[in-house]
């Protein structure tokens, strides 16, 4: 199965985002690099707004991810509650 991935800048907000992703995607692997964090997962990865809000202690609009995003891989689908990446094969 091919990996999807997403990479963010490393800052105070993305700490919570990465923690949420890791909790919601048990097969995800986190790779820390200078100023950047890359998360790989086999086939599918989902980011949940609620999980992030629970950690940040404030409301969070998933579109805010854009401010921190560096790159990604996979077909994207987004709605108000979830942002997900997947490959069909």
């Amino acid at each position, binding site marked *: 199965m091919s*990996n999807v991935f997403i990479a963010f*800048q490393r800052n105070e907000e993305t700490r919570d985002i990465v923690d949420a992703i890791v909790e919601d995607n048990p097969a995800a692997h986190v790779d820390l690099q200078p*100023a950047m964090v890359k998360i790989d997962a086999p086939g599918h990865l989902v980011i949940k707004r609620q999980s992030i809000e629970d950690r940040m202690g404030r409301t969070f609009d998933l579109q805010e991810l*854009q401010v921190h995003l560096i*790159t990604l*891989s996979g077909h994207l689908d*987004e709605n108000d509650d979830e942002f997900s990446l997947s*490959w*069909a094969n």
Partner: protein
Amino acid sequence: MSMTDHQRLGLKERYALMTRDLAWDTTYQPMDKVFPMVHYEGIKIHDWDQWSDPFRMTMEAYWKYQAEKERKLYAIIDAFAQNNGHLGVTDARYINTLKLFLTGISPLEYMAHRGFTHVGRQLPGAGPRVACLMQALDEIRHAQTQVHSMSNYNKYYNGFHDFAHMIERVWYLSVPRSFFDDAYTAGPFEFMIAIGFSFEYVLTNLLFVPFISGAAYNGDMGAMTFGFSAQSDEARHMTLGLESIKFMLEQDPDNLPIVQRWIDKWTWRGTRVLAIVAMMMDYMLPKKVMSWKEAWEIYFEQNGSALFNDLARYGITPPKCIEWAAVDKEHISHQAWATLYQYGAAAPFHTWSPTPEELDWLSEKYPNTFDKYYRPRYEYWAEQHKAGNRFYNTTLPMLCQVCQIPMLFTEPTDPTQICYRESDYKEDKYHFCSDFCKEIFDNEPEKYVQAWLPVHQIYQGNCFNPDVDPTAPGFEPLPAVLDYYHLAAGRDNLDFEGSEDQKNFAAWRNLAGRD
């Protein structure tokens, strides 16, 4: 009904109401007249409403998040400038990567802006139009933020002073320039595959991750910041590219061979342009991130194979050039640096001999190729430089008609043999670095016979300032060409050792107590 009983619309509905639901078909003139470029490439679209918008951003969200990125970016640029952040880089050789970036990449951001503006006008579908509009804004933002960031370096170091003039003239810059000219003059669908898909999706990580990580590893907060700020837009660009290809393939099976040919062409053209990034990663970063070979394996071979496995369901096959590129990954950085090293008198940035430690790193990262094919020349040149005989090649090279790079690439089966390919077209002969550049030419010769090849233009006498008389006795063409480039000979070019940049950096760092 109370004010609080309204049900909030979901993201998809809000987005649709604010974008595609606002569009209508024209009535005073037929749609085909209003959108004259939609059919000529042979791509068939039956239903633009099938376009699935990734990143459903309305203008409100767009401005909000872009404004936040801009505020952060300029705060960091200001802090970096105020703190003389440039003195914090590992060593001043690193600064030459930024000269390459400003002259070779920032102008392409501007052309991308023009390209997406054009395509956004030409596509009849509201969904892709909105995405192209945002990308067009993003790209000019990138061009401007890069110019702002690098203007700080321009205050202290040479070679940053005239990028807009140089992109149209300097020999190695015709490589990135012709890449974008080719895309920009193609039709709207080819442009989307060339730039939106092949460049922004398949290859973008190979451009940005090395530069940004390189900046981070080498203490360059300024470049790292603009890099990340641009990359945060790239995710939207990537999804636009991926959606473009899916949409074209789903609309009509007749689109498949056309799209496949474009993927083959643009993956190759992009791979060739990236030779400059390969050289940057392996030779120009005092503190290395990873080797080009490693970056290619992660970001192209692995990530690319995930992508092409996914697209296989439409009948897409991985680009033909993949096997050749897999061989090249162990060679091109060494070959490209050797080229810029020897033509260092004609480039507005410095080059240098790798240190013995750097040679050892290259041996370790390239166990199959470095010691056998490349170490001998680098050691020989270092020896000669020490003896006062630094190698400057003063004879102009043969260029590939399509990628416009000097014919420095070798046969995949023999790294000691330059790869020569040619085609005869009408009354003339044309030369190429590879099977793939030849195929690109053979598919559209009328396009590439017009190429502005720097070496040929110099020999035609088109690369001198207006007041120059090439027929005057004792005329030296090469200094006159450097003048035409606005390259200050002895200051912007030649070896890093002994350069003004080297002296200044050392003196200022000492003054700042940062040694």
